[in-house]
């Protein structure tokens, strides 16, 4: 039954830029890039239009570099609420064909359309036309018998195209491609594979599972399974929610943090949102992870366990700050911080009480924090907050939380 699945992977071309063009038709055909704010030090290209791409603008370029390669580039600030809206509209079109629609980020989706009367190619063509006619955006769609090849197919012909990778042609089509085309083959893996002279996806198949296990472990074998087209992972139904494994919040500061007090403020601020999200999801954290990026972009990560599982922003912040204080040597100022609540457990899980912890006091504090959360949900996040967070935190104003990329439910 696995071999005759029909899976589509639909990728919206230049999604952010396309939405911008929808909203302002004058931009059509021009070199457009959606960029973060230079002032807030998020000044990199987030997305670009087809003509900007042709001029050599790449995602991740710093704004002035992009201007350099493409002097007539029109740069726009991101409008995430619009992108989310259009993302949903496109998803609604997909849902006319199947309820197995699994989003991968804002602009990509897998669709399982097995068992229909029409072929995958016919369906893909229909979807492509519908999206163009109804929303004026283009998609490239990969059609295949598993998720991995469908994703790969959607990258082969762009924009506004359909690529079919089936049992009869996948060896010629897929195996000659570089390994980097394979989902889950990241930069480090590709580099390591290259050192073993494994350059193409076909080379992975030839290398065999034993080789991949030896050098890349469990994930290596997974890559081999993907490469030979034996991936059996399901397209998750539309309402599927991946279980939350950790809740994190990070920020790149407007100017570098220079001392412990500044770091404490940012950690405390980040922890407020984490506490809120834990509460919404009914989870408690048994550990905290802190990632620190210095101004040379050197990156470090520390983590610690919390004895009594908690959702208190203050407790999380204190642990994260403890990690910072006991590990960071201040040789360099700090550019970015991320606090993450890890080892999450359900709030309803029975919890052993401790001799040296005052439960009555803990319950009072929980009650207080719950009340603060209720006040915030009614009157806004800034209606009540710790006094130390008044004034300049060196954090970008109005940071919109990026729609977090949800990894597909295979690994």
């Amino acid at each position: 039954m696995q071999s005759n699945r029909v899976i589509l992977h639909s990728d919206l071309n230049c999604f952010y830029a396309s939405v911008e063009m929808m909203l302002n038709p004058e931009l059509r055909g021009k070199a457009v890039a959606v960029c973060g704010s230079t002032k807030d030090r998020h000044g990199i290209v987030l997305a670009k239009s087809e003509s900007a791409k042709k001029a050599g603008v790449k995602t991740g370029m710093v704004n002035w570099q992009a201007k350099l390669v493409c002097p007539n580039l029109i740069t726009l600030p991101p409008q995430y609420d619009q992108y989310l809206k259009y993302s949903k509209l496109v998803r609604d079109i997909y849902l006319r064909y199947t309820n197995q629609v699994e989003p991968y980020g804002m602009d990509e989706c897998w669709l399982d359309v097995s068992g229909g009367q029409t072929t995958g190619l016919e369906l893909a063509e229909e979807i492509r036309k519908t999206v163009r006619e109804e929303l004026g955006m283009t998609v490239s769609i990969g059609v295949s018998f598993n998720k991995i090849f469908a994703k790969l197919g959607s990258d082969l012909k762009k924009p506004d195209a359909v690529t079919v990778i089936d049992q009869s042609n996948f060896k010629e089509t897929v195996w000659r491609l570089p390994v980097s085309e394979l989902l889950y083959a990241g930069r480090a893996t590709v580099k390591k594979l290259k050192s073993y002279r494994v350059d193409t996806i076909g080379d992975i198949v030839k290398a065999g599972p034993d080789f991949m296990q030896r050098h890349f472990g469990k994930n290596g074998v997974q890559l081999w399974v993907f490469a030979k087209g034996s991936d059996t992972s399901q397209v998750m139904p539309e309402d599927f929610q991946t279980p939350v494994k950790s809740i994190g919040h990070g920020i790149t500061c407007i100017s570098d943090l220079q001392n412990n007090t500044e770091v404490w403020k940012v950690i405390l601020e980040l922890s407020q949102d984490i506490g809120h999200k834990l509460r919404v999801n009914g989870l408690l954290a048994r550990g905290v992870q802190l990632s620190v990026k210095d101004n040379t972009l050197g990156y470090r990560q520390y983590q610690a366990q919390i004895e009594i599982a908690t959702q208190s922003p203050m407790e999380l912040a204190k642990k994260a700050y403890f990690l910072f204080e006991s590990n960071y040597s201040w040789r360099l100022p700090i550019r970015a911080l991320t606090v993450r609540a890890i080892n999450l457990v359900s709030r309803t899980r029975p919890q052993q009480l401790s001799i040296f912890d005052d439960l009555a006091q803990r319950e009072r504090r929980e009650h207080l924090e719950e009340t603060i959360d209720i006040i915030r949900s009614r009157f806004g996040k800034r209606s009540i907050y710790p006094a130390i967070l008044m004034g300049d935190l060196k954090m970008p104003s109005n940071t919109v939380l990026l729609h977090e990329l949800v990894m597909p439910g295979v690994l």
Partner: protein
Amino acid sequence: MKFNCQKEDLLYAVQAVVRAVSTKNTLPILEGIMICAKANKLSFRATDLEMAMECLVDADVLEEGTVVISGRYFYDLVKHLPFGNVYFEKTGEQLTIEYDQSHISVHCLDPDEFPALPQMEEDISGEIPIPIFRRIVRQSSIAAATDEVRPIFSGIYTQFGDNQITMVTTDTHRLALCKGGWKGKAAQTYILPTHTMQEIARLAINEEESVIVTLSKNQVFFAIGNIIVVTRVINGQYPDYKQVLPTENLFVSQCVVNRQRLIEALERAALLPRDAIRGKSNVVKLAWQKDLLTLSADVPDVGRIKEEIPISFQGKEIVSNYNAKYLLDALRVMDSENVVMRLTGDNTPGIIVPDAAYETLADAPYTYLVLPMRVRV
């Protein structure tokens, strides 16, 4: 070095000291047992730097000397030797072992590398009758932490008082407090490694004898017959356990229950399989009411159990959730037919004491305090 020794004496000594042979593979020499032959005595020594053991046995020493051989190998070899006399001779780095008409030659380690054992400089501090020693170690060791996150909690906090020894352990979820008599004067307190104390209790077999204790600044010496165990002391400030024990006015109810009956019920309740999502600990709900203790456990999608045990009860009705293991640990090391459970509330400490004659709680030979589990909906 040359000597003759009986297999039985060898086995006795090696069996004792092999427990101090290091298994951690840090220093190769610590995997050895040192044998010193001197004045018709053999001294066997081993240490893992946490504890050191020495055992003296009689032998027929022809030429004095010292040898260190692999502890694990030597223990296995001695077990397999035939009964009777065994002759040892060390030449260079080889040790020759002769028995019957056979001989074995093994390579030995450098005795100069073997750490010197701490010397007993102080006078003997006192002695503990072996039955008491075994009881207080057995009853206290259960509540010591098994991880090394905070080293002080992995040890037994031991107070040598006037004619009374007090041992306290806690892993922050429960606390065990044991008392026993000793012939000795008040001295300082120590945090002693739990594992070492259990090893000493294991060696203390003869119920007629006593464990002779010598307290030194950084170590404690325990002598049982011809075996001496030296233990390192864990440094650190132990929390004030008396602060943790509820005062008399805080108790709201108490019951007397048959110990064996309660153990069996808890064991059955703990059998229901648990999963990682809901937590692996065996939560059992205990409801105390007049004449009846109801135990129940409910694991969704798995099953449920309910047991009723007759009790004699006074006070307020209480419903609490406990980790069955924590209750079982204590009940299993107690001796009395019935136990008294005293409670301070639904989410506050409960204590278990033997049902025996003593004036106040402070006089109980054993007090086990355990915190319930918090269940939120």
